[in-house]
């Protein structure tokens, strides 16, 4: 079933074309890696899919309904967003930040309920950060902050999660654990779309790759069908040697 659809999306800033006629479908259980060089339009595409910006032409549909006709809370119940981690101005506790994931369901007028507290604890436990519950978010490392934001998206209970470069700034261990988590969420039926600058991550964990180049969607398919040395050269202007062994693919700079 198609949960999220983009139909011929175009977006410009002045005369500069950021996205040009991009169409895609995201189905239940998709674990999609969005690849593209800096400035390819990845962030803009994600913002359009979240309804944070309005396209100059085309439309985004959630479960077949145009996003522009939906209320913000209705969109938030369907699609969650994990931004790149940043430090807020006030030292809110981790539990407080994660608890905000319940806002689309309970609204702004309600005090935290038992259900909210329970779902926060479940998400923190699942991500192995329950011990951070009362710590100020501002005092966490980048990897811990990223996991807190993912816990908030899980509490939001949306069936699609869009992540903006989730592994940026994480150490090797945290990167692998995060990719495994995304794989597991997709296996549970949640649709994942995450932008990345690491093609090897797309090969290792995604079941589908979208490639943006100069605002156009130039490839959409299984990772091993899409990500190869020719794509590396086209996207990043680098020559790499491609090695395929035991079903795995590696790239070595020439």
């Amino acid at each position: 079933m198609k949960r999220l659809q983009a139909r011929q999306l175009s977006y410009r800033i002045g005369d500069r074309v950021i996205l040009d006629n991009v169409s895609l479908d995201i189905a239940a259980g998709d674990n999609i890696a969005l690849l593209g060089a800096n400035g390819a339009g990845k962030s803009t595409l994600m913002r359009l899919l979240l309804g944070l910006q309005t396209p100059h032409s085309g439309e985004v549909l959630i479960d077949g309904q145009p996003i522009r006709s939906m209320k913000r809370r209705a969109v938030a119940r369907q699609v969650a967003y994990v931004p790149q981690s940043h430090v807020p101005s006030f030292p809110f506790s981790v539990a407080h930040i994660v608890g905000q994931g319940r806002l689309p369901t309970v609204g702004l007028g309600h005090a935290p309920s038992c259900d909210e507290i329970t779902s926060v604890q479940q998400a923190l436990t699942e991500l192995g950060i329950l011990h951070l519950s009362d710590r100020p978010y501002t005092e966490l490392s980048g990897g811990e902050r990223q996991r807190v934001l993912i816990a908030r998206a899980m509490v939001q209970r949306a069936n699609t999660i869009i992540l903006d470069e989730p592994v940026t700034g994480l150490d090797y261990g945290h990167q692998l654990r995060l990719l495994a988590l995304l794989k597991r969420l997709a296996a549970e039926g949640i649709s994942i779309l995450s932008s990345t600058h690491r093609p090897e991550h797309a090969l290792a964990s995604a079941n589908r790759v979208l490639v943006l180049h100069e605002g156009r969607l130039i490839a959409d398919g299984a990772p091993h069908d899409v990500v190869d040395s020719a794509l590396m050269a086209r996207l990043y202007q680098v020559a790499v040697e491609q090695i395929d062994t035991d079903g795995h693919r590696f790239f070595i700079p020439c």
Partner: protein
Amino acid sequence: MSPSKLYSPLLLSLLALIMTTVCALSLGRYQISIHEFSTFIATMVGLSDMPAQRYDLLHSLIIESRLPRVIAAVLVGAGLSVSGAAYQGVFRNPLVSPGLLGVLSGCAFGAALGIIGHLPPLAVALVACVTGLIAVAVGLGIAHMFESPSILLLVLGGIVANALFTSLLSIAQYMADPVDQLPSIVYWLLGSLSAVDVQALWIIGPTLAMAILLLCLTGRAIDALSLSDDEALSLGVPVEKIRGGLIVLTTLICALTVSLAGMVGWIGLLIPHLARLLVGPGNTRLLPLSACLGGIFLLAADGVARSVSAGEIPLGIITELFGAIAFVLVLHRVRKGWL
């Protein structure tokens, strides 16, 4: 955390506010003992008896003379504090104070116009309130000249409005009669509760109290706005509508406080930080606690203003002096997380 732990700072501060109010009603040039005060209250509600002459004296002193001033102090202190806490959350900046968008300079200009025009105190208060609202409208109008105004544009609009109305105030001061009107304007700008007009309090007080209560209930919305706009929107929060509503409500509160007591500085910056030390940054508890602490602080400051010298010291001088010292003392604690 258990509910008793969550809400005990609020209950304690409410208790402290009641006790400070009783002290403020009892203390002054004519001191009233706690025993006599409680007997007077009991007599008022029919539970006790006291000589009629004594009762009339205490009634005149407590109810007619001190009570309006005490109510005004609590409302102004609570209003400025809760506005400061809300602005800091809405603008994601712990150094923001309620005058950010130009409301205070607008009010000051309006009051100066009222004084030059020989208007009665109630009219001066109302003109000050209206020009405060106009100043913020000018700032917001400048920000909205651009598509989808960001926080930065709102702040820039506020800076322009502040500069515009400060210069208009200077023109008004330049044109004022230096013997009669200019000292009145300067005294008004220093802030004071000595001339709280009972009629103005009856008109402004209930609206101010309702607005403060309403703002105290918006904690979750301000928590959500403390995130980035994209995060708040992706959590289903209509950012622009809520930010706009909060700015209107906060501006109204500030304008009403200034129209009652003139310019009383530092409370809106200091008290939210003190409250954050006690209950953390969550606005659900921060806003009501800021309101209580603000009321206590201004009652205490007003007590100092009217009792340390033969003549009354303008309230703004006391709040700025003690506020600045207190802010330095708590700086090493409050900077945690934002410096």
